[in-house]
């Protein structure tokens, strides 16, 4: 088995169809409205949305494939690096623990998909999550995956948990809350290892944090996640704090996400103007 598996080689059965960020960007349609009327500006996935059930199903499938890739990413970190010289033994133990957690998250997601009436492979799988797990520096990987990707997972699970709570769907609320607990742990693992390994290497730490913000921006693409109600997914400040993000770090992600939303809106306006 090779070290460092390219994203194209992720093994899937025939139900899955994988797309890249480029495929997604090639789609000129947008769900984000440029209409400024307040009633139209609410894209947040909440039960009061007219298409709430379908929006929740779509997001749930996104979570499902995200969990598979998180599982694969953590597993690859166990394999890709030599224990001791490239990655500490204890870091690998954490990654193995994360494998188990993510495997349970895949199981939970499958049960929830059944509950919501979705089928495996009903939606495309965006492989951008695994791409963040492909760095050849374990610290960068932890920054990209555990801090950026798992941070996004905290935002997503909080949005879904609240969705279940408001809809009176205890099955959904229960499951999301449990996953949320695990993800907070995973983000904390990322923060702790980043601090520990780069304690005497400010350059490496800066590189890792830069990589994290690149990944954060990538996941904020199109304004999917931000504090604005125009974004389908919110930014979960409280749970991010629990996971070891400080206020300033959360503010940076909030600003970055909002900028991504505005960028996308401007691009849509431009595309529409070009059409007319």
């Amino acid at each position: 088995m090779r070290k460092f598996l390219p994203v194209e080689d992720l093994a899937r059965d025939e139900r899955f169809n994988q797309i890249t960020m480029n495929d997604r960007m090639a789609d000129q349609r947008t769900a984000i409205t440029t209409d400024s009327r307040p009633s139209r500006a609410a894209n947040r996935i909440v039960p009061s949305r007219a298409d709430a059930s379908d929006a929740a199903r779509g997001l749930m499938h996104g979570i499902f494939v995200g969990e598979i890739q998180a599982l694969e990413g953590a597993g690859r970190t166990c394999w890709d690096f030599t224990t001791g010289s490239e990655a500490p033994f204890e870091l690998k133990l954490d990654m193995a623990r994360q494998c188990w957690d993510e495997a349970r998250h895949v199981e939970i997601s499958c049960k929830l998909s059944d509950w919501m009436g979705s089928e495996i492979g009903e939606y495309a799988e965006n492989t951008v999550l695994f791409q963040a797990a492909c760095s050849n520096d374990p610290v960068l990987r932890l920054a990209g995956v555990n801090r950026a990707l798992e941070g996004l997972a905290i935002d997503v699970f909080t949005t879904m948990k609240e969705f279940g709570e408001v809809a009176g769907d205890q099955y959904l609320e229960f499951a999301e809350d449990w996953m949320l607990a695990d993800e907070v742990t995973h983000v904390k693992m990322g923060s702790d290892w980043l601090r520990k390994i780069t304690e005497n290497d400010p350059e490496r730490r800066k590189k890792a944090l830069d990589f994290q913000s690149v990944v954060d921006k990538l996941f904020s693409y199109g304004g999917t996640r931000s504090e604005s109600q125009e974004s389908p997914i919110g930014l979960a400040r409280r749970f991010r704090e629990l996971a070891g993000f400080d206020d300033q770090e959360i503010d940076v992600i909030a600003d970055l996400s909002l900028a991504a939303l505005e960028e996308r809106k401007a691009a849509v306006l431009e595309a529409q103007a070009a059409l007319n």
Partner: protein
Amino acid sequence: MTVEVTPQTFTFVSFDSAYILRIAQRLIGIFGLEDQNIRIDINETTPLGKMHVEFGDPIVINIQSGAFEDFSRPRQQSEPATTQSLGRILLKVSDRLSPEFADAPADEDLTLMQVAIWETYCVGRLSRHDIEINRQRWLYNFRNRHGFNDASDRAFEKIWNSDKLTWDQLQSISDTAVALAQ
């Protein structure tokens, strides 16, 4: 009477208007809407899947591209999604044209609960026309509107299995479910 699909060619999505027309014609035949002039306008600039009807001559059905899309292959058309979406909206048209639905509020005045009962009524009937429907998806939608409880599930069951309901009967099943859950 005529059926028309616009646009003829698509820029943002890979849809086939002739294919959509064939599916629409088949469904129009099944639902006995042959005596109506119908135009299907597809809005390909959004991936959302909303549908809306304007009654006139012709009857204009506005459909956003997400309603016909294969979500696993973005921008590609899905035959099941096209059939299900057209089936749902055409059944709604047929209901609206019948006196039993004279009391139904206008689309923009329908509550989310009312939308859910009507949708359930449509997809339940569709499932008996050999059209593949994921029942759990619609049960989930119904529960999101009526609550996650036994009364809600019984109401869903009743509507799903019915073929000849009036708007008032639909409304009453929904009201009963809500009252029982409280």
